[in-house]
């Protein structure tokens, strides 16, 4: 052991392509493997970096990297690549891999790769491994889930397999971390490419392959063959290069599909030979694996849907009933604090603090319980492997709408946040399915809408039981979510008719084995999401709250003073008491403030929906992010009100219209609710749609379509209910 550790890694000859400056930088190691082979778990074990592990194939959408301390003196940069079954990419996130591995000159080109292999699925896992080996990449094989394989009676002759594959093999269990220490020791050595070749291009292909190889100065034939196969999708090739490759492949009559099929079959034949000599299987159990038996229940004809519905219902129950208690504590805590400060001090700065900062901050903190519960729930469903079953259950249902079962995961994630959900749509191979999914996902009610829903529903829907067991408010909220869902499905159906398919849609997918969620990962996900919400959304919300307070407290010129004087003049004539005077003064001052002017400018456009200029201000600020709505109305309705006016609910109830009646009638509240269900009010979503579709056409279409839909629907609701 000591001999291995003491081998100074830097004394090893550097890989020739690494260049002379390489000794200054840490090793660069890429992790690659099939989906569900434990790759991301291994990444976490190595780097300790906070990062999400999921069970749904393709949760690793972006390339993630972190640093691992291999030995006390040596660090390595670890890059986590998306899960893939071969080096011939089928989906967008698999293309990340080819871009990285085909270009030796790339800044991120790895010194070697660690291939994670599921010991239970050796045959299929080795397909990718042999391709990587033939590319001439130095590799280590991390043989994962050895414990499970042994229980299943799979015996692997490791020394023999090492000889056959020509690389070091480290047996391990990435979930509990056993074997990771040994892997780190091997990783700390500078590895050379294995001399073993598993497959060589056929003689007939050689003229084409060699011509490409010499033209691009490539180091081996197999890489040249991949250029011939995939030049259209390789991002670092210039247009001239691509044209040249097209000419060459055409000239030699290269049939990419036939070649790829022949290669894959030949590789499997070679792998079978290797496994015949190195692996013996003695099945001890004749029973079906536990996972299959669980599937019998969870994907049952009727039971499957009932369980899925039950899980969704539990999710809503958790978010809207259980979360209420901690939310009330936060709300009361903030208003108590605010009242305590106002009781002990006064002046413009204290008002800025209580009416601006604290009011805005309260609007952020109060939603932590709901966001934590939602992301926790989704993380558990993903961790256990249930999400993959949901796609299976839903595929047939989704297809009439132009979506596939794979659209369900982005759409369910859209309940949390459309931004990661839209990125998650990368796992959908078909361009058309993917575009439709991206387009309609923002219609799913995301967590940023929760604040708006909760506040307005609580305002106009009584807190009473419905049909015995349900809470009327809960039912209303469920209705809003269903409205979002059905509008998403309807829009998808329309798009299906409008768009032309570019390629066929696949649904071939592996089912991950059920497993208990790793609670540490779930807790980590919740922590990261809450932190992101508080720090990122929170900053915007508090900043906008403070800005709004200033805009609402001060006005252009002497207008505010003039308005106040007018109100006071009428006092004696109208016989108002002191409370009424201060309320009217505050209202007049707000109306003539800067914010009031903006809202007034907008009012003609939103009056048909039942909104006044105060809501107009909130709508304007909501276009940065929806959750700002609550902070905004909280700030606007705080200005000039009594400090002991407590919670946001009380503030909204106290708001009166011109006739002295409560302003927030059911008609107005529902019109607003429907507006928020449909409207595209999220800069981040538009930005991510642009990034994912690489065109402004899609985000602009989303903005116009969703906001138009919101206007029309809110108009209809208000006119019918009012």
């Amino acid at each position, binding site marked *: 052991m000591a001999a291995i550790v003491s081998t100074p890694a830097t004394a090893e000859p550097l890989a020739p392509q690494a260049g002379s400056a390489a000794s200054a930088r840490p090793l660069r190691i890429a992790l690659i493997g099939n989906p569900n082979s434990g790759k991301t778990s291994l990444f976490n074990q190595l780097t300790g970096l906070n990062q999400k592990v999921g069970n749904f194939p393709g949760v690793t959408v972006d390339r993630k990297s972190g640093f691992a301390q291999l030995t006390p003196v040596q660090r390595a940069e670890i890059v986590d690549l998306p899960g893939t079954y071969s080096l*011939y990419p089928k989906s967008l996130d698999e293309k990340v891999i080819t871009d990285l591995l085909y270009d030796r000159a790339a800044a991120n080109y790895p010194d070697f790769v660690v291939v994670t292999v599921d010991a239970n699925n050796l045959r299929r896992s080795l397909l990718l491994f042999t391709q990587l080996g033939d590319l001439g990449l130095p590799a280590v094989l991390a043989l994962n889930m050895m414990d499970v394989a042994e229980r299943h009676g799979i015996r692997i002759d490791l020394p023999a397999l090492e000889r056959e594959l020509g690389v070091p093999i480290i047996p391990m269990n990435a979930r509990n971390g056993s074997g990771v220490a040994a892997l780190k020791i091997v990783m700390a050595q500078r590895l050379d490419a294995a001399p073993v070749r598993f497959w060589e291009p056929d003689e007939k292909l050689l003229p084409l392959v060699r011509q490409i190889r010499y033209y691009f100065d490539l180091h081996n034939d197999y890489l040249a063959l991949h250029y011939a196969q995939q030049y259209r999708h390789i991002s670092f090739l210039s247009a001239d290069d691509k044209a040249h490759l097209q000419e060459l492949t055409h000239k030699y009559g290269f049939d990419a599909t036939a070649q790829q099929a022949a290669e894959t079959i030949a590789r499997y034949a070679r792998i079978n030979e290797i496994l015949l000599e190195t692996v013996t299987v003695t099945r001890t159990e004749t029973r*079906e694996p536990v996972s299959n038996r669980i*599937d019998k229940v969870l994907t049952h004809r009727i039971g499957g849907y009932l369980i899925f519905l039950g899980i969704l219902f539990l999710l809503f129950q958790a978010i809207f009933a259980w979360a209420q208690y901690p939310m009330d504590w936060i709300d009361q805590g903030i208003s108590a604090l605010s009242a305590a400060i106002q009781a002990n001090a006064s002046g413009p700065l204290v008002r800025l603090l209580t009416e601006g900062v604290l009011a805005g901050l309260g609007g952020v903190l109060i939603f932590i319980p709901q966001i934590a519960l939602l992301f926790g729930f989704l993380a558990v469903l993903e961790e256990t492997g249930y999400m993959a079953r949901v796609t299976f259950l839903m*595929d*047939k249902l989704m297809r009439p709408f132009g979506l596939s079962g794979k659209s369900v995961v982005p759409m369910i994630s859209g309940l949390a946040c459309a931004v990661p959900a839209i990125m998650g749509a990368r796992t959908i191979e078909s361009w058309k399915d993917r575009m439709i999914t991206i387009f309609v996902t923002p219609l799913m009610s995301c967590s940023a809408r929760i604040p708006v829903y909760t506040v307005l529903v609580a305002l106009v829907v009584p807190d009473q039981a419905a049909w015995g067991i349900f809470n009327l408010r809960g039912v209303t909220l469920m209705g809003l979510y269903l409205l979002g869902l059905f509008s998403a499905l309807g829009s998808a159906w329309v798009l299906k008719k409008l768009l032309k398919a570019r390629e066929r849609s696949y649904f071939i997918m*592996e089912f991950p084995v059920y497993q208990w969620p790793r609670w540490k990962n779930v807790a980590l996900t919740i922590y990261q999401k809450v932190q992101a919400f508080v720090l990122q959304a929170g900053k915007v919300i508090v900043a906008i709250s403070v800005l709004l307070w200033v805009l609402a407290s001060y006005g252009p010129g002497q207008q505010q003073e003039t308005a106040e004087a007018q109100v006071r003049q009428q006092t004696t004539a109208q016989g108002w008491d002191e409370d009424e005077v201060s309320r009217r003064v505050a209202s007049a001052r707000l109306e003539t403030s800067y914010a009031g002017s903006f809202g007034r400018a907008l009012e003609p456009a939103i009056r048909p929906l039942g909104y006044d200029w105060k809501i107009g201000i909130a709508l304007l600020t909501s276009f940065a992010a929806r959750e700002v709505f609550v902070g905004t109305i909280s700030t606007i309705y705080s200005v000039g009100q009594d400090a002991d006016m407590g919670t946001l609910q009380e503030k909204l109830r106290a708001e009166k219209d011109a006739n002295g009646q409560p302003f927030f009638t059911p008609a107005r509240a529902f019109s607003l609710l429907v507006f928020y269900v449909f409207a595209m009010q999220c800069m981040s979503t538009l930005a991510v749609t642009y990034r994912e579709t690489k065109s402004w056409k899609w985000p602009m279409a989303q903005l116009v379509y969703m906001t138009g839909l919101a206007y029309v629907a809110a108009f209809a609701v208000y006119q019918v209910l009012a």
Partner: protein
Amino acid sequence: MATRRTAKDLRLGETGTICCLEDPEMALKLLEMGCVPGVKVRLSGRAPLGDPLMLVLGDQEYTLSVRASEAANILLKE
């Protein structure tokens, strides 16, 4: 031709052996996922609406979910 059977025609719980794959493009995807000629395939379940199918490959090795239209490209040996 009349006796041609595919993975789509398997009865629930029935096992067949893959003979060959049709439709070159689909075949590539199936091959990569381990649907190689000679491998055993068992229909272990159907989604509640009859589609997609749940196929267990090899000797209880792993489960794939495929649409019936995709399974129709997996020809079985007699």
